[in-house]
């Protein structure tokens, strides 16, 4: 596991090529690792008949809503939680 609970990570703002589970709205956004789900077959391989190996750790990442949506009118504590495979985030300061 590259990341640990509570660590801040930034999702790479890279184009989705092929089948990608990372939703566009968190690309380039920074959040915090809230949970480590475990290691799963890589969907970007499984989607094309591949074996899904090497497996990818999957993290639950919490993002502040006001960081994700410009003009967000809700509370400052509101978060959106997204499952992100390990090859999408990078360390954030």
């Amino acid at each position, binding site marked *: 596991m590259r990341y640990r609970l509570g660590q801040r990570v930034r999702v790479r*703002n890279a184009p989705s090529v092929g*089948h990608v589970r990372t939703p566009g709205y968190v690309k*380039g956004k920074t959040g915090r690792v809230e949970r480590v789900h475990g290691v799963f077959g890589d969907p970007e391989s499984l*989607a094309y008949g591949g074996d899904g190996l090497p497996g990818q750790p999957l993290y639950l990442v919490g993002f502040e809503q006001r960081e994700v949506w410009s003009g967000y009118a809700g509370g400052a504590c509101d978060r959106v939680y997204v499952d992100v495979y390990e090859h999408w985030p990078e360390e954030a300061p």
Partner: protein
Amino acid sequence: MEYDSHAVARLVHDRGGWLTSEPIDRSEHPLADWELLTDALQQSLVRNGLMTVDELRRGIESMPREVYEAAGYYERWAYSIEGVLVEKGVIAPAEIDRKLGELAG
């Protein structure tokens, strides 16, 4: 509230935060028999190792935009199942056409 577009183009299925002028239909609605069958078919195919749920998703995501937009939820599943099974050589398009002919006849 606006989607903070940050340069990367999104595929048709990647809809979180898309602006819409229409209210979202949150009502429950009963499924038609063919929709239940499509769900069962997909689960059976996965259980028997003929396709993965990731392949199902990929098949849906690669639908032409206008076809995707015009299709219902399980129509997208059926479209993808057919495409993936043909691609993997599990079924041939001629087999599907023949069966459709039988059903129509």
